[in-house]
C-alpha cells in the first residue's frame, strides 16, 4: 500500500498516539499514523476533563484553536445513597485565571483538532485503516505492520503502540497479557443537550465557567465504581463506570445502572428536559501501577491506556496518555539522533524517562488502592454511604431528640454495620493505600 519506509509508525490517533506523532513529526521524523476510525475520535470516549499543563508541554498555544468546552471553577464530590447525597464542594475564583488549568472537552471534536495539528506538523495520517498484525523479522524485532488495506506490509524503524485499553495488537503479539476483569472498568455515558443558559443557571456558572460532579455510593449497587457529571457548553456528560469483574459477578446491566443514576433525586433535576444525543461505552484500565506491562522491546514501545497508564483514583487518563506519548517520542528522537538502532536496550530510555515523570510516580503512590477497592466494594460503596447519609440526617433533623442521643445513635449505627474492628481496619487500610 505504501512503498515507503518510515522512521516511526504510530498505531492509533487517540490522546497518546497524537502526542507521540506530533512530537516526532515536529522534530522532523518521518511518521505514519494509522487510525481505524472514519475520523480521529470516532471510536473514543472520555468523560471528559482535559488537563492543560500536559497538553501545553506538547502544543503551547493550544488555547488559540482547540475545541474547549468550559474551564472548571467548581468540583463537587458526592457520596450518595438512594435518596440523598452528602457532598464536598470546592469552588474558587482562582480558577478563573488567564490560562485555566482544566477544561471539559468533547473527545470526537478534540481528537479531530489534535489530528489536524499532527498533520500540520508533517505526519502522514491514514484513517479507516485497522492495523491487523505486527510484522517481525526472524529475530523477533518489530519492523512494521499489516493493515486491512490492500497491499503489503508497511515498514518502520519503530512502532508506537497507542492502541488504547483494548490493545488487540499487543496482546495478540504476545507483548503483554490480556487485561483481567478486576483490573478494568466498564463505563457508560450519555450526552444530554440543554441550552447554555439553563446549564449556567443550574450550576451557578457564567460564560465559559464549568462545574463537575464525581459521585460514589449506592449508585454503583455495591460494585466498585464512580458516577460523573461534567458540564460542557451546551451539554452535560453523564456516566457511570464499575469494574468488569463486579458487573459479571452481580449480573448487572450498565444501562440500567445509568438509568437509575439519571433518576436519582439529586441528579434528575440537573438534567431535566435534556435531549439525549448519544450513548457510549468504553473500558478504563484500573489496575494501576502493578498492572503496568513491559513498556518497550525490540522495535516497539507502548503508551497510554494500552500500557495501563491510567490513574483511576483521580480519574486521570488522557494526561498520562499524552505525557507517555510525548516521552516515548522524545526517547525515540534521542536514539535516532545518535544514529543508534531501535533495539530493546536503546528504547529502555523511554522507561527511564517515564519513571522520572509524574505518570509513574503517581501510579506508584496508589499501588495498593485498586486491590483495596476491589476487595471492599460492599463497604466502601454501599455501607459507608448509607451510614454517612444517616449520620447527616440525624444531625440535621430537629425533632426534639437530645443531641447526645443522636450522636450515640450515629456511632452505634456505624459499629453495627461494620464492627469496631472493621471500621478501624478499613480506615487504616485506606490510609495506607492513600499514602
Amino acid at each position, binding site marked *: 500500500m505504501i512503498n515507503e519506509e518510515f522512521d516511526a509508525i504510530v498505531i492509533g490517533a487517540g490522546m497518546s498516539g497524537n502526542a507521540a506523532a506530533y512530537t516526532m513529526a515536529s522534530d522532523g521524523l518521518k511518521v505514519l499514523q494509522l487510525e*481505524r*476510525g*472514519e475520523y480521529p*475520535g*470516532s*471510536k*473514543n*470516549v*472520555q468523560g*471528559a476533563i482535559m488537563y492543560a499543563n500536559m497538553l501545553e508541554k506538547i502544543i503551547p498555544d493550544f488555547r488559540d484553536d482547540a475545541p474547549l468546552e468550559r474551564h472548571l471553577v467548581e468540583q463537587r464530590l458526592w457520596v450518595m445513597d*438512594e*435518596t440523598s447525597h452528602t457532598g464536598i464542594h470546592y469552588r474558587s475564583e482562582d480558577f478563573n485565571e488567564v490560562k485555566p488549568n482544566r477544561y471539559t472537552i*468533547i*473527545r*470526537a*471534536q478534540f*481528537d479531530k483538532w489534535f489530528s489536524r495539528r499532527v498533520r500540520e506538523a508533517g505526519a502522514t495520517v491514514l*484513517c*479507516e*485503516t*485497522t492495523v491487523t498484525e505486527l510484522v517481525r523479522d526472524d529475530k523477533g524485532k518489530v519492523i512494521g505492520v499489516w*493493515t*486491512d*488495506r490492500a497491499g503489503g506490509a508497511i515498514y518502520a524503524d519503530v512502532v508506537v503502540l497507542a492502541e488504547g*485499553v*483494548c490493545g*488487540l495488537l499487543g496482546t495478540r503479539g504476545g507483548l503483554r497479557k*490480556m*487485561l*483481567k*476483569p478486576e483490573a*478494568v472498568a*466498564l463505563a*457508560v455515558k*450519555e*450526552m444530554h443537550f440543554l441550552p447554555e443558559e439553563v446549564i449556567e443557571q443550574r450550576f451557578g456558572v457564567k460564560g465559559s465557567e464549568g462545574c463537575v460532579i464525581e459521585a460514589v455510593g449506592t449508585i454503583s449497587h455495591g460494585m466498585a465504581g464512580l458516577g460523573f457529571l461534567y458540564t460542557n457548553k451546551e*451539554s452535560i456528560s453523564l456516566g457511570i463506570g464499575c469494574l*468488569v469483574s463486579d*458487573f*459479571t459477578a452481580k*449480573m*448487572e*446491566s*450498565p*444501562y*440500567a445502572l445509568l*438509568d*437509575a443514576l439519571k*433518576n*436519582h*433525586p439529586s441528579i434528575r433535576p440537573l438534567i431535566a428536559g435534556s435531549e*439525549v*444525543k*448519544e*450513548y*457510549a*461505552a*468504553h*473500558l478504563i484500565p484500573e489496575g494501576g501501577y502493578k498492572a503496568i506491562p513491559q513498556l518497550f522491546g525490540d522495535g516497539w514501545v507502548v503508551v497510554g491506556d494500552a500500557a495501563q497508564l491510567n490513574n483511576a483514583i483521580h480519574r486521570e487518563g488522557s494526561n498520562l496518555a499524552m505525557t507517555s506519548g510525548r516521552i516515548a517520542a522524545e526517547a525515540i528522537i534521542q536514539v535516532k539522533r545518535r544514529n543508534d538502532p531501535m533495539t530493546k536496550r536503546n528504547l529502555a530510555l523511554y522507561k527511564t524517562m517515564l519513571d522520572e515523570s509524574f505518570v509513574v510516580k503517581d501510579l506508584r503512590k496508589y499501588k495498593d488502592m485498586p486491590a483495596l477497592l476491589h476487595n471492599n466494594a460492599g463497604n466502601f460503596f454501599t455501607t459507608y454511604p448509607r451510614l454517612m447519609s444517616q449520620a447527616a440526617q440525624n444531625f440535621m433533623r430537629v425533632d426534639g431528640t437530645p443531641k447526645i442521643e443522636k450522636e450515640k445513635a450515629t456511632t452505634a449505627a456505624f459499629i453495627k454495620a461494620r464492627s469496631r474492628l472493621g471500621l478501624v481496619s478499613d480506615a487504616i487500610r485506606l490510609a495506607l493505600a492513600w499514602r
Partner: protein
Amino acid sequence: MTNPVTKFRVEDKLYQNRYLVDSGRPHIKVRPHEQPSANLLALTRVCPAKCYELNDKGQVEITADGCMECGTCRILCETSGEIEWNYPRGGFGVLFKFG
C-alpha cells in the same frame, strides 16, 4: 427506598448513535456451545449494547450491529475461546459524534 426506574429499551439508546454496519461481516462471533459458561451468560446482562441474548435452547447468541466496540466481552470470553473478537474493518462500526 429505591427510585422508580422508568421503562426504557437499550435499543432506543443505540438508536441515537451512528453506525456503519459492515453487512455480512460480523466482527464478533460466539463459538457453538451446548451450555454457556458463567462469563458468557453474564454477557446477556453486562454487554452495554445488549448484543448478547439467550435463545430458546439456552445458548447465547450475538447480534453485533449495535456494538460499541468496548471490549468487555473480549476480556470475559476471548481467552477461553468462547468468542472470536476483532475490530470491524477500518471505517466501519460505531462512529461517535461526541464520544
